[in-house]
């Protein structure tokens, strides 16, 4: 990663503001005091929890508070010691401290669980079992089946993107009742996935009387069954998921469209470019960064797709619609097989992180090259 990463916009010139020595030492004092307090509370409670000392708090809540006190002291101390640099750090530190506070334990505990054999109904608790879970995962054809399904579902994002782009362009056109259409197009995003699964998946798509089935019959499909053939089932799930999430992509893209420099589009029109040409030569390239953000966010949501699958098909027929999350859900919740379920999820997490890191690297590089080329073009 380069020093001036492309995602960071314009940054300030460093303005040197001197900090006096006394302020610095006060800052250090505050940090030390905060750290000592936190360490003391932590130690106090750890000893109690370990059974070494007899007195302690009823819960770890005071430690949680002490952590935030410590975090506050660090932020304050930073400002005093490092002046403006400290003030800058103070913007991002609260979010960092907050996230770390809530995820550090679950992450560590989750990693540990991935290497244990823990069935909640077991007569003994969790047992460390090394790489057994990983080996089992490797040999579990239905987990790989779910992963393969994720690839299909992931690719479908590009269709959703195309539809959302089209809708965004229409909403951005000079139309009547624009506000009405915008609100209406946003509505599907607001329904809860559980309601979508039942009201759409099990009611509208019901094969005897559901409106979708009746429409299908009208169009010549004699015996409509939306969840029997593997590909149709996958498509049905995808359609429901797309219905919910297209609005999200659409508003991100619409926002991008509205921010396009009008003069550029005007210039293209004056030059006699057809709307089609204008779109491909100007609009689409300018929309690339926001498109990537939209697709990325959408893919992340897609990778968590579970509710609709669990409620409508339970992964069937024969695992055709299974997502990794719904697969893990059955292993983890229905079978209380926590160790293996966690291992499956950690593996998935690592796979996703690698995938997204590569995707980000490739796209940022591609976009920056693309926009440089375009800049040269314009000159």
């Amino acid at each position, binding site marked *: 990663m380069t020093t001036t990463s492309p995602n960071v916009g314009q940054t300030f010139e460093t303005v040197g503001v001197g900090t006096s020595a006394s302020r610095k030492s006060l800052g250090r004092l505050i940090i030390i005091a905060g750290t000592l307090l936190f360490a003391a509370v932590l130690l106090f409670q750890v000893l109690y929890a370990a059974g070494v000392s007899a007195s302690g708090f009823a819960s770890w809540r005071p430690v949680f508070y002490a952590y935030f006190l410590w975090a506050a002291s660090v932020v304050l101390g930073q400002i005093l010691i490092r002046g403006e640099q400290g003030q800058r750090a103070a913007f991002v530190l609260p979010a960092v401290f907050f996230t770390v506070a809530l995820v550090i334990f679950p992450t560590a505990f989750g990693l540990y669980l991935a290497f244990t054999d823990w069935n909640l109904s077991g*007569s*003994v608790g969790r047992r460390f079992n090394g790489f057994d879970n990983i080996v089992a995962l490797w040999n579990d054809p*239905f987990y790989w089946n779910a992963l393969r399904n994720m690839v299909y579902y992931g690719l479908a994002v590009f269709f959703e993107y195309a539809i959302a782009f089209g809708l965004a362009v229409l909403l951005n056109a000079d139309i009547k009742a624009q506000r009405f259409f915008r609100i209406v197009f946003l509505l599907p995003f607001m329904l809860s996935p559980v309601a979508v699964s039942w009201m759409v998946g099990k009611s509208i798509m*019901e094969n005897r009387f559901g409106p979708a089935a009746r429409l299908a019959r009208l169009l010549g499909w004699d015996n409509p069954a939306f*969840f029997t053939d593997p590909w149709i089932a996958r498509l049905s799930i995808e359609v429901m998921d797309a219905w919910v999430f297209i609005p999200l992509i659409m508003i991100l893209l619409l926002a991008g469209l509205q921010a396009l420099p009008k003069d550029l589009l005007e210039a293209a029109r004056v030059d006699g470019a057809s709307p089609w040409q204008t779109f491909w030569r100007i609009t689409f390239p300018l929309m690339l960064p926001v498109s990537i953000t939209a697709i990325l966010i959408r893919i992340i949501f897609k990778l968590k797709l579970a509710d609709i699958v669990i409620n409508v098909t339970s992964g*069937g027929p024969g695992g055709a619609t299974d997502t990794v999350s719904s697969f893990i859900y059955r292993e983890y*919740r229905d079978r209380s097989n926590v160790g293996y379920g966690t291992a499956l999820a950690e593996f998935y997490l690592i796979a996703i992180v690698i995938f997204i890191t590569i995707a980000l690297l490739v796209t940022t590089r591609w976009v920056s090259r693309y926009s440089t080329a375009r800049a040269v073009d314009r000159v």
Partner: protein
Amino acid sequence: MRIDVYQRLMAVQASRRKFLGGAAATAASVAALGSTGVLGTMSRALAQDSASLRAEILKIPGVGMGSPTDADWQKVGEMCLGPTKATVQEGEFAGVELTFMGLNNQNLHNFLFRGFLKPWEAYTGAKINWIDLAQADYNPRLQQSIATGTVDFDIIEMGAPFEGDTAGKGLLDEMPDWVKAQIDMDDYVNYLKAPVGTWDGKTYRITIDGDCHTFAYRTDYFGDGSISGMAAVPTTWDEVDAVSKAVKGQKDPLTGLDAYGFLDPLKGWGGFGFYFLEDRASAYVKHPDDKAWLFDPDTMKPRVNNPGWVQAIQDVMDLIAAGAYPPDQINADPGATGFQQFLAGTGSMLCWWGDIGSNARTSDTSVVGDVVGFSINPGAKKVYNAKAGAWEEPAEPNFAPNMAYLGWGVYVTNRVSGDEKKRKAAWSAAAHLGGKDISLWMAAYPSGFQPYRNSHFNYDEWETAGYDRAFIEDYLGSNADSYNHPNAAIEPRIPGIFQYYSVAEDELAKGFAGQYKSAQETADAIAAAWEKITDQIGRDSQVKLYKASLGM
């Protein structure tokens, strides 16, 4: 006294009609006789209005008046407060707060309990906080609470299969004797008496539900000139499957839509879907001389891939191949087969819990109320003897009604054990829900529960409520016959039983979708997964608990 009457009746193996007449007499004798002492006075006092009270509550809201609502539950709860008033002073539990965990299925379970307990709260002064769970969350939430020590409920609505997970781990409070008297435990049907509800000889459960699967069929599919071409209702699985194939391509006499035969759910249902394969399999594998039918009791080796089970799976696969199911059946779970299909007029036969019977008449969902009949689950002409490792062909078909889930009960956790006032309050609330009169109402109206007391099998009471006599004899008779069947397939109350079911229905769904080559291969996959679970949970302890739960 009552037990005597009951046992005598059982001893002479009364015909269904006779037996039920006797049961009515049993109920009457309870009302008339009453023992001595405080409890005797109590029950005598109650007995005076009992009959009229029972008739009154059955009129709320009345059969054919649509599903009951909150106002009805509160009214019934209020009217059935008698036993509580006899044991608890007004305002005695002021300041007590209890937490109740149960299912939150719309208009059932907790919805009813809330309405029932509202007047109880008003009378006793206690306050109940509710933890509502969707059915799919129930098992995981319970297991997670136990495993992490975060049990946060004082009273829990729970099925007997979970007794291994809770009572077995010492999490429950033993039932006080006054509760046993208040709820009249002797009135329970036989199979729900100890050992069900007990663990190591201690009683923990107030039963509020009895469970068994019965065979429900459409009467208009059978008889002379019917579309199935069969004069009589099928009683064995090969006959059932023959009907499925025979009615294919014809039109349903009630709805005019396509006619279908037996409705097997081909999709899982959070573990509950496996019961429906058991319905088919128990006839093939539950040998009258052997209590065990899921595992070998000495080794916990699964029997699910023995020829009997494979036959049951093969039967379903044959029907799939014959195209005998409605479209999209591969995506139909038992909720769909029962409520979206059978009650809505699609398909002609299914095995389900008994409450589909009261639903057929009282639920807003049903259109088949007038053309539905019941009997015990179909039998099989051959039965596999696992001990001998061979098929046998008995003179009469082998019947083995499936006591799926053993019914819901109300339990009190050990969180209240240290506080006598709280403990009494918790048991009083639980006993109110498990009361004899209130239970009649729950058995008659959509509640999520089915009959579980001998006193529920009194036709006259149901007739007063507006049920048609022939229908109720048929419906209740199928339940009674299943409960009292000598070869009933009883579910083991071992820890993690739903894990076995969950993985089994998952593998079955794959098999039905053609992911495995054959029925045998599907069954082998289930067996392998079961072995894994047994090893995970601990084979030795499972063997011990499995034997104990079978009474071996």
